[in-house]
């Protein structure tokens, strides 16, 4: 038994991030349901929002939040536009929000398979096996790193399950994608979410 358990880990080093990302590619436009859990030292309990992510090109991402409120975030190139119900729409530059850039770059890489673009902004590593893998992206820019420590994308086979933005102060934003989104409960902690991402029920 130990030998069987050992086998996936010894194969961990052998996973090639480039090949992995290439496998994950999917033609644009793509639309994925998501549930996002926001954990922060300021919060009593995690914030949970749910909606759709729409990807329509390398620098074009839409994040539509539908629960518990409506909010639409559009990223086009370097400009971001946020429209929330009951508020004035706001526009600002992408560079102001490294987390957002992380989301955009990470996602576009996933969906378009553009590895060089990804490597321009992040240090890319892969762990795990073909069945159950984790992509680790660490921002190359020191200033961005002050806020955003790393991005973890976990999934199995060629389906990404989770997209986690981990902050330097201990907070995190975990996006559970696709079918797994339905399995998220309000009371989930970071740890239980991690297990969910790693394919507990796979």
């Amino acid at each position, binding site marked *: 038994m130990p030998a069987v358990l050992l086998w996936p880990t010894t194969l961990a080093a052998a996973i090639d991030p480039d090949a992995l990302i290439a496998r994950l590619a999917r033609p644009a436009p793509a639309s994925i349901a998501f549930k996002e859990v926001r954990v*922060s030292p*300021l919060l*009593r309990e995690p914030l949970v929002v749910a909606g759709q992510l729409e990807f329509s090109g390398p620098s074009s991402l839409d994040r539509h939040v539908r629960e518990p*409120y409506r909010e639409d975030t559009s990223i086009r190139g370097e400009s971001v536009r946020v429209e929330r119900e009951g508020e004035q729409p706001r526009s*600002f*530059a992408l560079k*102001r929000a490294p987390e957002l850039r992380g989301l955009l770059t990470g996602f576009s890489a996933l969906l378009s398979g553009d590895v060089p673009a990804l490597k321009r902004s992040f240090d890319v590593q892969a762990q795990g096996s073909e069945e159950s893998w984790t992509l680790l992206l660490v921002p190359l820019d020191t200033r961005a790193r002050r806020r955003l420590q790393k991005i973890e994308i976990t999934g199995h086979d060629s389906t990404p399950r989770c997209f986690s933005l981990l*902050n330097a*102060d201990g907070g995190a*934003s975990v996006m559970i994608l696709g079918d797994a989104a339905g399995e998220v409960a309000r009371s989930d902690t970071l740890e239980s979410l991690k297990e969910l991402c790693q394919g507990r029920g796979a």
Partner: protein
Amino acid sequence: MKRTPQALLLLAAWVVALAILGWFVQRQLVVGADLRLFLPSPTTPEQRLLLEEVGEGPASRVLAIALDGAPPEQLADVSRELVATLQDSREFRLITNGEFALDSVPDELLPYRFLLSPTLDTQRFDAQYLHAELLARARDLASPAGSFLEPWLPRDPTLEMLKLLQGWQPMQEPRREYDVWFDRSGHRALLLAATEAPAFDPDRQRAALAELQRALASAAAGAPVKMAVSGAGKFSVLMEERTRGQAQAFGTAATVGMILLLLIAYRRIGSIVLSILPLASAGLVGLAVVSALFGTVHGITLAFGFTLIGVAQDYPLHLLSHRRPDEEPAAIARHLWPTLATGVASTCIAYFTFLFSGVIGLAQLACFTVAGLAVAGLTTRFGLPPLMARVAQDFGASRFLDRLWNRIEALPRMRWIAAVIAVVALAVIALAPRQFWENDLARLTPVPEDLLLQDQRLRGELGTPDVRYLLVVDAANSDAALGRLEALEPGLRELIERRAIGGYDHAARYVPSAASQLRRQQRLPDLDTLRSALREALVGTPFRPDVFEPFVQDVERARTLPPLSIESMRKSSLGASMDMLISQRRERTNALITFSGVQDVAALRALAAAAGSDVRLLDTKGESEALVAAQRSRMLWTLAVASLLLIGVIACALRSRSRIYRVLAPMALTTLIVLAVLRGSGVSLNLFHLISLILAAGLGLDYALFFEHASADRAEQRRTLHAVLVCSLSTLMVFALLMISDVPVLRAIGVTVTLGVVFNFALALLLTRPELRNVPIASLIPHQGAMCLLERIVEWDERRVVLETDSHRSSSNPLRVADKLRAIHLCEYGAQAMAVHGALLAGTPAAADGMLVAMRSVTFARDWIHDLPSSLRVEAECLHTEASSLQYSFRVTHRGELLAEGRAAVMLQAPRTA
């Protein structure tokens, strides 16, 4: 040059004295570059405001910077690097690229944020407001777009800091890419810098620009990033360099040309040395005087002063040209001195008036010129003769000059030409299309058109303050000023809505008045109230209850803070903007409202009028033009006084009406002609045209005075011709070069003086020739009274003389017998004509030492001549000269018809000197 020991000693002493003076001057001399010295002194409060405030005001120190040559992302990085490098520079008060992060709010201002932000004007920190804010913050946290706020939330859940930062951004903001400013096309990164040095100080501006270049080189780190800098400071550097560069180039060319000219004219090296000495003395003494009286010399004064000293170079040239072998140089100098002194005195009077022009730069010029010219005149009179050797060269004997002079003499003498020219000139001046005076100071700038356009474009994109229109608020102290500014806010916002302006800026946008701050402070809840409101607000939000304690503490601290003052704001990084917008002036405070994108000036005027008497609209262009116009009328008045004084000096010196006319007419007529030419070619006159006209008039006066002085003496006339030729050629050389400059100031001077010299020379020759009609013949020959039969000299040269007379018809003619005059008396006419000729040749009156000894081959065509209706024309021609005798032939004609002719021999008492 004399080679005696005394002369060489004197020369050595002079050179040493000049060297010492030169060393002294060079040590003491500070060359200033503040162009405001050439602007008129202000008289009205608006003008004072213009020069004091606006000269050092917001728009003049602003430099617009554009970066391109690399992909936009790289440009954005370079832009950020530049700002980081130059943030603490001594040369720049402010450098910004539009980037702001929450951590760019200065630490010392953070506690004041509740008093500075307008939130408390309309809201209270009650449970309802706080709840709404907290909910919004929660959603911000949930969005990756808003999660950058996370670190600030405990202290500032209502985002006052963000509101402050947004309020401090310029109203008209350029496009943002990568969080920094870019131009409309998105290809060039834009930055804004404000220099410490005012725009009028080219040296410091140059230092600032150099530092900017260095910072760019290190920020770009090899990338091919190009930087374009534009602004008043940059232009003043450009202007100064161009002017200086061209002045130097022309100065060198002129010096070389001058030396060549002197060599050709005098053919000896000594004359070059002799002409340089008075000029060098004049220049150094002039510098010393200005340095002693004013402390600094302005660069323009220096450049201009030296061209004016070019007048002074004429003095030694006159002395050199009038040399003759049979006279001591000292005697020649004595001879010329009255004329020279008159010339010096009259030019000095004209420049003396600049002392009263109200412009410091011109007052400096006056001192420089007057001192210089006086020294040049005195050194020529007393310093040069001991150094001059007697030379065999006598320009009075030059064949070339003689021929030239004869040709000039042969030119018809048309008095009426002067009148015609005057009338035509006046007509052209009056009817010329463009306006007479150039009031727009901007047209004096040599900055090329395309740079100016680029500057306008950049300023438009950056939304920099308009250079032309400002609102000035006058208040008793800074707080009152802030209150007034706040009161004007609604009106200003309306102007933006109506699109009359694009944006505005004033000090109250950064620091509210104490009253506003106190009002907001009073609306802050006390500790317990806030805590309970917060507790209530937190219900229904996902936040932890203890998270916002820093916020509570900050509010409590803010409740007891004294209002933030302008002074403390000045020390912060926003201080640069503060200084530009509000300042203390003589116990009053002036606050400025600057505008960008002004579309409707009338609306601004209406706002100012409605606001009250303490708010004034300042039209910098209009005020500066009024300033220039006022200065000019003052100058014209002083010039009128100077002209009267000048005429007085000339009148005292010459004492004869006809002589005065002959001296003043060329100068006056030339001035009219030059004005007509300038106006006719569409040039509007400015201050430098005026100065040049005076210079040209001074030169013309010198020429006319010297021509007039030469009068009847042939040799003297030739020497004067030589002198004036050399003088005018040398002056022409310098100023003709200036004509090709592209610096408007230099071109104005060059064109005016060149035209002036050419016309003065021509008119002096034409109008100043002594009227031979007026030479009393009785002074030339021994025959006096009625026995002097001849009346007018028509023309004469070395060989012949032609006279006219009507005395044959006169009843007082002593040769008449019984009212009839025999033709035989025409011999007497002939003899007198010969005597006149002899006297004219001798050059001095009553020196006809000849005796008529024989007459032969005389023929007469008629018997009586008393009844001839027209004038008799008597010609005498010298056929043959010997040491002690002359052979003449004479002819008398009447209306072309020959009456008598014959030959005579004249015996001389004393042998003639050849």
